[in-house]
């Protein structure tokens, strides 16, 4: 017969009165029952009535999660049922509830009457906490880990802002509890004032959903939904929104749907997919539904499904993709569906020179409005071998062969281009007291025929090599075209050097400099002056970066021709201080610096965050078009954070070409210490400060 737990008692003195079976314990009195501990100076235990009377101040504790400080109580000997008067209950060190009366009916339910609850520090009686909930009664369900308020009023800085007859919130520390989340308020020129009231639904241990009604003062009514699901071999998410009434467009029932997922298949294959579709009814302003309601400003929604596998010696990819373009200039019908694209690479050790030989088989088919417009099947062979001489020279030999068979618009063709490369590098190092310097001169001589055998696919709408970058990351590469359709032809030399200042705990610096010298200009990289690769001898490529541990990074890369006018400059600075951090970027791109980019781009952006004090933080983002001298977009944010709340004010500005500005204000309040949001001890409000 399982022994029922018995309440035990420790005290400095006990007086025992046999006649009236009353026992008086005094001095450091502690009563233990199961996980409950009562600590006080004096108790009177009446054996016949089996009641414990606690005349003075006492603390009743259940582990660390439930602590009652009170001024008097009458409890049963199991410290369960009973009445406690003027108590202050602390739940999981986060939520404090001051109650006139605490009535413990049984182990699961505690009833608190005439209550003030808050997770904010309350310094002394008169002090008004940042927020508090006043209620006639609270029922604390310890098994269900929930608090049910009756006739609850939410005060903010002492001002009542919300009343509800019924309110139920999860116990602090409960991460997944269904219920309403804190509403979000925004107001802006596009959608007017708006409120979102999210409802979180913990469906099962491995799936949950959030349903959010979103209404705006201009009359739009939208239902947002989000669903997250973890399955045995992966997880997927779905989210979307459906406008029951959309005042910003002729049509109602605008919306969008997105989903992503990743699944581990048998023997190490992995499946990833992403779906992103949006309605495109013509809106009054030319921004789409996603932009109007602040979901995203992506103008190309990519949908793909792919299976990949990587092993020690190989890589396999098969995927299909489709992109919905919201750009006014792109009509959906001429956006190709990639159905499918296959890459299969195997890496071998070449028996003759003990070098590395990679063979990649690839194919792609592009569909345009349901009929096949282009298919390419090809192979790429890559061979590499490096020798290290006694004097420290690194000699490299490499070869690449691209062979493609392709069909498009009724015609089919073949093209192939071999490339050979000889390389010599001479890395030198010098160790000083606190850094190691490495200088590495590099010279590569590359041979390739001026024209491919057969003819390469020059069709701009189907070739995958219509854009090419020229920067320090591909200065020394054997073939700078991004895809398979075209390969770099002709005889040329990549010459340059790299420098590294390496100091594990100090300033680090990287420099790369070089250029490409060609026998003949084959105009593969567009005729404009500034791709850097257009003339016989390319522009100088330079990149300089230095960084100081995690705190500071600076990078600038440049493309400049012989008389030093710069056709490309991308610079970025990142600084992470403890109270202040910022990131800035500057871009200057001359016309055609990038294939297919006719107009000049000159832009700077800055984002900064400053912790003015433990509680106040400013954030600012700004993007400016230096070409036209006009701003593009900006965000200003002010965040107040203390131990029990986070209030976020935000202002975002969008400037469009003809100068009018969209302003959106946002107010977001989050209560910390409830549910899964722990109290923020870093910026806790300190009494008397």
């Amino acid at each position, binding site marked *: 017969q399982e022994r029922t737990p018995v309440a035990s008692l420790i005290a400095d003195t006990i007086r025992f009165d046999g006649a009236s079976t009353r026992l008086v314990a005094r001095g450091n009195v502690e009563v233990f029952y199961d996980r409950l501990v009562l600590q006080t100076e004096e108790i009177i235990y009446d054996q016949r009535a089996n009641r414990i009377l606690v005349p003075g101040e006492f603390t009743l504790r259940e582990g660390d999660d439930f602590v009652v400080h009170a001024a008097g109580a009458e409890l049963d000997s199991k410290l369960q049922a009973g009445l406690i008067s003027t108590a202050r209950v602390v739940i999981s060190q986060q939520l404090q509830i001051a109650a006139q009366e605490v009535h413990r009916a049984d182990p699961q339910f505690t009833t608190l009457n005439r209550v003030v609850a808050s997770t904010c520090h309350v310094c002394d009686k008169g002090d008004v906490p940042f927020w508090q909930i006043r209620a006639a009664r609270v029922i604390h369900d310890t098994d269900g880990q929930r608090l049910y308020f009756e006739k609850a009023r939410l005060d903010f800085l002492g001002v009542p802002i919300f009343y509800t007859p019924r309110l139920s919130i999860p116990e602090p520390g409960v991460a997944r509890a269904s219920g309403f989340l804190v509403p979000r308020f925004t107001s802006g020129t596009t959608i007017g004032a708006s409120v979102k009231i999210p409802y979180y639904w913990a469906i099962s241990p491995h799936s949950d959903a959030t349903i959010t009604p979103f209404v705006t003062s201009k009359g739009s009514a939208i239902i947002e939904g989000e669903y997250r699901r973890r399955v045995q071999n992966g997880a997927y998410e779905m989210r979307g929104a459906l406008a029951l009434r959309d005042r910003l467009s002729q049509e109602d029932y605008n919306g969008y749907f997105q989903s992503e997922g990743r699944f581990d298949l048998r023997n190490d294959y992995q499946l990833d997919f992403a779906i992103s579709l949006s309605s495109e009814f013509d809106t009054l302003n030319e921004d789409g539904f996603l932009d109007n309601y602040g979901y995203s400003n992506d103008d190309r929604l990519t949908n793909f499904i792919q299976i990949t596998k990587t092993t020690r010696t190989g890589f396999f990819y098969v995927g299909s993709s489709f992109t919905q373009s919201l750009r006014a200039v792109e009509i959906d019908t001429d956006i190709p569906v990639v159905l499918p694209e296959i890459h299969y690479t195997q890496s071998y050790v070449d028996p003759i020179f003990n070098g590395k030989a990679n063979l990649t088989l690839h194919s792609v088919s592009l569909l345009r409005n349901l009929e096949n417009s282009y298919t390419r099947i090809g192979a790429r062979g890559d061979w590499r071998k490096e020798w290290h001489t006694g004097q420290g020279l690194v000699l490299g030999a490499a070869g690449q062969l691209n062979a493609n068979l392709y069909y498009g618009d009724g015609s089919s063709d073949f093209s192939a281009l071999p490339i050979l490369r000889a390389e010599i590098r001479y890395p030198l190092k010098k160790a000083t007291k606190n850094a190691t310097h490495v200088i590495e001169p590099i010279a590569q001589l590359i041979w390739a025929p001026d024209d491919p055998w057969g003819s390469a696919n020059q069709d701009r709408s189907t070739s995958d090599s219509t854009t090419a970058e020229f920067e320090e990351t591909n200065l020394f590469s054997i073939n700078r075209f991004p895809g398979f359709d075209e390969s770099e032809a002709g005889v040329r030399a990549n010459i340059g050097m790299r420098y590294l200042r390496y100091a594990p705990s100090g300033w680090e610096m990287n420099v790369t400099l070089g250029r490409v010298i060609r026998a003949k200009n084959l105009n593969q990289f567009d005729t404009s002056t500034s791709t850097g690769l257009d003339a016989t001898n390319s522009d100088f490529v330079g990149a300089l970066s230095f960084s100081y541990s995690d705190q500071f990074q600076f990078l600038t890369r440049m493309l400049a021709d012989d008389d030093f006018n710069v056709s490309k400059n991308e610079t*970025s600075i990142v600084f992470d201080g403890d109270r202040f951090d910022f990131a800035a970027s500057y871009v200057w791109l001359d016309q055609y610096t990038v294939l297919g980019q006719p107009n000049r781009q000159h832009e700077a952006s800055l984002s900064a965050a400053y912790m003015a004090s433990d509680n106040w933080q400013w954030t600012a983002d700004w993007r400016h078009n230096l070409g036209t001298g006009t701003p593009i977009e900006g965000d200003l944010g002010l965040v107040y954070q203390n131990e029990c709340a986070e209030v976020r004010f935000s202002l975002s500005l969008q400037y469009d070409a003809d100068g009018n500005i969209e302003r959106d204000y946002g107010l977001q309040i989050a209560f910390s210490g409830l549910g899964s949001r722990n109290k923020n001890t870093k910026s806790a409000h300190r009494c008397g400060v």
Partner: protein
Amino acid sequence: CGFEPVYGEKSSASALLGQVDIQVQNSRNSFEFRDRLIERLGRGDASAPYYLTYEFGITSDDLVISDSDNVTRYTLSGVTRYKILERASNTVVFTDKVASNTAYSATSGTYQTSVAERDAHVRLVWDMAEKIATRISIVAPDWPK
């Protein structure tokens, strides 16, 4: 002027060639990263004395937004945190991180832009692999044998 070759007769960088096995992760970036490191450090097999593990952190941001509010150029910033494990004693002999950055344009067709994005990722991981190879070649002397 005090510079000496990194590789050479008795240099520990030469001794290290072919001695580092590199972790396999299931992604194109990982395959290309491993491929370039194998070119520089030699192919270490599963029983090689050193084992390199790594973790990519790649973020993409809008670099240029045209006035019709379309993003025309993206920048990719990459950080690779890596560790070198001495397999026999199962101790980490070297921990470091390298950073790199590249950009690609989104002005061509949707398919061409996705190929440009993929090529940008490959350039990024190749550049980080080159940086790691250079650093390993100068730090190798301090590793316990």
